[in-house]
């Protein structure tokens, strides 16, 4: 057991911060803020990362990556998420769509799809959830029928982020065959979003416009060579992808950053002398520490080649609660003016706390609801019996 930070990782963190300080525009507030400059900036930022070989830091050398250690990757992910993810939609390419292609793609697919991702030139979205298939993903209804040399896809996907960025490609989940076990018969497709028959309808959210979309597929022709992995075995890919994703976001790093700003605000407003404020912020700091260590436990396993399915869920359950608590404590600290958003000139901390609060109202819902994460831990981690 060793809690010392590798000096090379510490230097890398400094370098990253220098890049962020020099690159992030004043107006940057993360995605989904109804600012037309956001998506173009994320493309530019990804290219800047690519130029330093930091974009595909996590990828193995054989796929054009830097093959960085799990710990170096953790530094990258902390700094990115703390800065409200300036890689924008492309973090998904790097964290799990790329890795899925590496693991399940044909040599042709890898040669075709990985290089544009590595250059930071392509936006992917993910077509998993459906109006009637959320946490119960296996009940999805989107169908893919093999007709000669292509699949014809029909169905509706929902909560699809970035589809209107616009996304260039979609990692699509569809049922390609009827099967006895409903987890069988599902396949993963790589779909060109410019294919005729695809329509994208943005769904506004409490955090602002453009966060979600509904994507409808009507007789969309997907070439046969755009099937990823084996037909009918898509569930296995989804499970692998979800594990990649859960460890891919350093939620606690954002919470810790917001907490730093709350400390500054408490000092400046004189509230730092109130023992209640001190105790509350200290409790959150302790919780940030715990969240970081739970994430590092998962990273430690990754570094040893173990897939930390249960450990990643535990870290995620903990971090989502932390994120919400930081938002609430922040609003209580700011008082009534905490209602004001980034667009208001008198908003305290430029509306950052308000944004963090709203964004985290549904944080326990994204990427598998809290309930599903808990079921994973209950069955796989604790060995509790499954409901019949």
């Amino acid at each position: 057991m060793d809690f010392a930070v590798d000096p090379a990782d510490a230097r890398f963190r400094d370098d990253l911060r220098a890049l962020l300080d020099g690159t992030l525009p004043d107006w940057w507030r993360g995605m989904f803020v109804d600012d037309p400059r956001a998506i173009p900036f994320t493309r530019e930022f990804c290219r800047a990362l690519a130029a330093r070989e930091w974009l595909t830091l996590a990828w193995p050398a054989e796929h054009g990556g830097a093959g960085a250690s799990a710990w170096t990757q953790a530094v990258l992910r902390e700094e990115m998420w703390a800065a409200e993810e300036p890689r924008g939609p492309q973090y998904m390419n790097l964290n799990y769509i790329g890795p899925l292609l590496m693991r399940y793609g044909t040599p042709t697919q890898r040669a075709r799809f990985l290089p544009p991702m590595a250059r930071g030139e392509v936006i992917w979205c993910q077509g998993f959830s459906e109006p009637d298939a959320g946490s119960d993903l296996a009940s999805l209804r989107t169908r893919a029928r093999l007709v000669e040399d292509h699949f014809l896809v029909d169905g509706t996907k929902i909560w699809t982020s970035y589809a209107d960025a616009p996304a260039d490609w979609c990692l699509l989940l569809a049922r390609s065959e009827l099967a006895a076990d409903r987890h069988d018969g599902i396949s993963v497709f790589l779909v060109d979003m410019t294919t005729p028959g695809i329509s994208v309808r943005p769904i506004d959210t409490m955090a602002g416009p453009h966060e979600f979309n509904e994507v409808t597929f009507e007789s969309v022709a997907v070439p046969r060579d755009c099937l990823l992995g084996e037909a009918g075995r898509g569930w296995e890919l989804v499970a692998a992808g979800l594990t990649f994703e859960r460890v891919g976001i350093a939620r606690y790093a954002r919470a810790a950053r917001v907490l730093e700003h709350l400390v500054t605000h408490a000092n400046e407003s004189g509230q730092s002398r109130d023992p209640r404020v001190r105790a509350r912020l200290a409790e959150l700091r302790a919780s940030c520490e715990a969240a970081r260590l739970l994430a590092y436990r998962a990273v430690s396993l990754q570094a040893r080649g173990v897939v930390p399915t249960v450990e990643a869920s535990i870290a995620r359950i903990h971090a989502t609660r932390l994120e919400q608590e930081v938002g609430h404590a922040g609003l209580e600290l700011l008082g009534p003016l905490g209602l004001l958003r980034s667009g208001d000139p008198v908003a305290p901390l430029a509306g950052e706390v308000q944004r963090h609060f709203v964004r985290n109202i549904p944080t326990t819902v994204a990427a598998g609801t809290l309930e599903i994460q808990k079921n994973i831990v209950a069955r796989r981690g604790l060995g509790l019996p499954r409901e019949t």
Partner: protein
Amino acid sequence: MDLTWSDEQEMLADAAAAFVRRECPPERVRAIEASDGGHDQPLWDAMAELGWCGLALPVEHGGSGRGVLEVTVLAEQLGRGAVPSPLLDSTALAALPIAWAGSDAQRARLLPALAAGRSIGTLAVLEPGMTDAWGDVSVPGGTRISGQKLLVPWAHVADVLLVASSSGLYLLEAARTAWDSVSHDAFAGEPLFAVTLLDACTEPLGSPERPAGPETTHRVLDTAAVVRLAYAVGAAEACLDLAVRHASQRVQFGRPIGTFQAVAHRCVDMRVEIDACRYLAFQAAWSLEREDRAAPLEVTAALTYARGALRRVFLDAHQVHGASGFSTESDLHLFTRRLTEFEITFASSRRHPDLLATAMGLS
């Protein structure tokens, strides 16, 4: 002791519930919020017609002479529909303080129009840097007032503006003087404005010798907080309704998600917290109405309890809804925003627990 409604209260609540269902369903709320200014004159006129603007105002000035408790009964039903209206603020933040502390002339001049809904009132308290509505204001009072006030509800449609100054409450009338209102960018349930006063003509509320001081401001804020709590309780009830409906209809893993204990018990937790807040609000309103000496304790107890409780309610509602609750296509956000506004503006004050501590004997 009887915690059930009187027949009269029951009738008021039923009438309000029916009115809200009929005149202000969620589509109308959305339309009003999306409109310029966010104020719906026909809706206002209809409510004025029902006598709700003057519900708690003295009979001699055109009101119905009912009390704060009746206003909370009404508020709960308005909250249940997330009705966007200056009605409660006009009553609690302007009309009632004028009735309590205004001079005879001020009462005679202003109350009839407020009671009839021919004019709208509001109150400006918060200033930049203030973290508590009950905190110390710094804008100096006087017959001419200058300064900036923030988060003033409905300032753009108000005819009467009370201003909390360092020397007490002052009165501005749109008919006599002008103020500048800039809409805030807020995550809120009602239109909020930054108001800039530049040498605005005012008069003290009450007599020039004995203007209404901070104790009146505190009483106003306490009353408004309790009325707003009742509105929030209604909004929370709507969150629970939506959650129960969603849990009963949404099928996952082959059965309604409401059959999963984790989901069902979340709904029960909401039920418990809403009921607790509800009776605390009614008790506080009852005591405020009587100027009972227990009133401050009961107001602080209600607000102290509501702070965390109502937040848990809307978070639970979102958890039950999954992603769909975050989409503005669901009605849930209408209520979440109102609950958040209530929590931040009225319930998060650190003043209340401290006052309650004193009231319960902590030295």
